[in-house]
């Protein structure tokens, strides 16, 4: 797995605390804390700001669109309204300017229509004069509508009542969508009549289709029943029912959002056009309107993602680096603590051993002298000289004293070895002395130890205690590695003029290749839980360096291990002085 390759070394490490309580995965915890805190502190405001910013942009664009829609609706309304009012007033003027009679004259009427068409441009299609009974008396235009009876129609009654009327768009007799503007006039005799003109919806459509509307915008007119009065681009043709609801009445321009057909959000602006049945509507696709906003959003998200990636990379990197540093520092501290602890321990053991030996030596001397005196008495006075039993007893006492003396001497030797001092050493004797400690175990486990010290090795001048400690540690390790009945081979050779090398070879379990690089690390142990402290080789390494030597290892799993130490024949004095201070 990738994770196993990239995970930092401290991930599964437990902090070694000199005590019973160990925090599990402390470094992981520190790392997580650092990452979460710094990440949180830097990312949360960033994300928050981005969201706020996006919202602000969205709101700005939205209100901009609403505002723009409102403006377009207002302007268009004014144009439409003006268009209708203009024509209405024109008719009104005609009614007042011409009498019923002259209007009834088809030539005159036709001339008026021509003039209207010329003055007002498109729009007017035909004109007719309807008398009070609803009978169309005169008509000019492309359709043959003279004599039509409008008396039953709603608009006719309404125009008689209110004097003016603008109709919805309808097909009527001619089957072409149009609208009617009618004004009431009164003849010389005082009877009412109606001048009606029909307008094609083309001018409206021109007007509306000329509006440049963003976002699939659609401008059209509906009546109050929701019937489309002009053709639209997306919402159906003339006289179809609009799929949207008819908005409620309002005297002002209003804009709202609505869920259109097919679930699309629409921006709808509308305005009731006064004195007409018309409602001007502008409908836009909100999504298209908001497209710039999405673009900004996308840019923002991209920027945000880049920022987050960079920040996270930096945070992860620094956190990992720092925690690694902490780990290394901790390990160093622990190692030196242990080293000091170890040195102190050995020093106190040394002092204890020395004082015990010394105190025992005095009574031993007394026993020795007294027993000697007894023996002397026997031999000099000749009374008991032939009493072999008594002499034997005294000799046994003296023998025991000698044995005790050997023990105390060894104790003293041990304590003296802990103090750094350079002395002449016969390497062979030193090695045999070390093996003497292991004699019992090798016998019990029938481990065969062979020693071969080259003849040309001179007397070394080095620190006996340290050299023996090194040998003892390495031999100990070899003992731990081999099976019962295994072999350990110790060889010493002169390497060059100033150095000797000592190799300790075993045919034990060997060291895995992956571990080889780490065996000198403090606390590196494959025997954790079996009493291994992981300090042995680390201390050995330190000791070898202290006596100016070097140590190498070769190993193959299940084949065995070979340690080679190379030490100088003469150890420099300065080094020794310095170390003395450390131990003392």
């Amino acid at each position, binding site marked *: 797995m990738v994770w196993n390759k990239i995970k930092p070394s401290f991930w599964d490490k437990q902090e070694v605390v000199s005590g019973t309580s160990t925090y599990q995965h402390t470094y992981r915890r520190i790392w997580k804390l650092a990452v979460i805190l710094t990440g949180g502190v830097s990312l949360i405001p960033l994300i928050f700001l981005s969201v706020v910013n996006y919202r602000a942009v969205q709101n700005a664009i939205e209100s901009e669109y609403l505002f723009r829609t409102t403006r377009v609706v207002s302007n268009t309304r004014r144009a439409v309204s003006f268009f209708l009012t203009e024509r209405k007033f024109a008719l009104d003027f005609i009614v007042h300017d011409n009498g019923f009679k002259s209007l009834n004259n088809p030539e005159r009427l036709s001339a008026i229509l021509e003039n209207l068409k010329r003055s007002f441009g498109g729009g007017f299609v035909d004109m007719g004069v309807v008398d009070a009974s609803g009978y169309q008396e005169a008509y000019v235009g492309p359709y043959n509508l003279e004599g039509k009876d409008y008396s039953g129609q709603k608009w006719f009654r309404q125009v008689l009542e209110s004097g003016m009327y603008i109709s919805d768009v309808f097909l009527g007799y001619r089957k072409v969508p149009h609208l009617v503007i009618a004004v009431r006039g009164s003849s010389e005799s005082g009877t009412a009549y109606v001048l009606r003109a029909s307008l094609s919806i083309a001018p409206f459509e021109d007007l509306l289709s000329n509006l440049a509307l963003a976002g699939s915008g659609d401008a059209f007119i509906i009546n109050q029943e929701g019937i489309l009065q002009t053709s639209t681009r997306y919402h159906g043709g003339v006289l179809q029912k609009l799929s949207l609801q008819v908005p409620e009445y309002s005297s002002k321009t209003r804009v709202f959002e609505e869920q259109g057909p097919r679930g699309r959000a629409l921006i709808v602006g509308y305005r009731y056009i006064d004195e007409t049945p018309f409602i001007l509507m502008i409908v836009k696709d909100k999504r298209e309107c908001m497209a710039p906003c999405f673009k900004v959003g996308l840019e923002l998200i991209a920027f945000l993602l880049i920022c987050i990636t960079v920040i996270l990379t930096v945070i992860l990197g620094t956190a990992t680096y720092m925690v690694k540093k902490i780990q290394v520092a901790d390990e160093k501290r622990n190692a030196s603590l242990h080293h000091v602890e170890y040195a102190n321990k050995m020093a106190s053991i040394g002092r204890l051993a*020395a*004082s015990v*030996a*010394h105190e025992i*030596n*005095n009574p*031993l*001397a*007394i*026993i*020795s*002298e*007294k027993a*000697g*005196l007894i023996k*002397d*008495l026997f031999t*000099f006075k000749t009374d008991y000289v032939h009493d072999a039993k008594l002499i034997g007893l005294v000799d046994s006492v003296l023998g025991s*004293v*000698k044995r005790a*003396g050997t023990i*105390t*001497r060894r104790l*003293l030797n041990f*304590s*003296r070895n802990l103090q750094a001092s350079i002395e002449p050493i016969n390497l062979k004797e030193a090695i045999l002395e070390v093996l003497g400690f292991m004699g019992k175990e090798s016998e019990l486990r029938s481990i065969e130890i062979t020693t071969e010290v080259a003849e040309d090795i001179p007397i070394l001048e080095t620190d006996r205690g340290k050299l023996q400690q090194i040998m003892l540690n390495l031999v100990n390790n070899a003992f731990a590695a081999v099976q019962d009945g295994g072999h350990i081979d110790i060889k010493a050779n002169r390497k060059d003029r100033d150095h000797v090398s000592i190799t300790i070879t075993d045919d034990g379990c060997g060291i895995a290749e992956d571990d080889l690089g780490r065996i000198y690390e403090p606390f590196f142990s494959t025997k954790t839980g079996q009493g291994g402290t992981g300090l042995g080789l680390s201390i050995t390494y330190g000791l070898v360096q202290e006596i100016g030597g070097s140590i190498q290892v070769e190993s193959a799993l299940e084949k065995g291990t070979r340690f080679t130490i190379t030490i100088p024949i003469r150890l420099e004095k300065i080094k020794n002085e310095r170390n003395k201070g450390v131990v003392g």
Partner: protein
Amino acid sequence: MKIRVLLVDDEEEFVQALAERLSMRDYDATTSLSGEDAVEKLRQYNFDVVILDVRMPGMDGTEVLREMKKIKPLTEVIMLTGHATVESAIDGMRQGAYDYLMKPCKTEELVEKINKAHEKKAEHEARIRDAKVKEIISSPQAALRED
């Protein structure tokens, strides 16, 4: 003439036994239980060899040695040590002690060392005597001078 030996050690039992054993071997053994007493005895009497324990309460072996070499420079000293103080014994030898022994020591060894030390002293004294004789022969008045 018996070899005169002064035994200095704070362990009375040890000194007593050793003195007795040396007496049996035909030495003139005197004991002393402290450094101060030993110096006092040295002032009063002449000894051939002093067996001196390094570690004693009060005046220790090295100090006694230093003092002794002022009073009786010709008297030979054998340092006796409980090994932990081998260094001070070696120090003592640098200051003119003849040899050192580790406790508990073999009597034979001690006797041998005493004899050798005495031989050395005797030889030394003999040379001085010879020198004196020569001086007297060359200038008889010298015999009248104080030693």
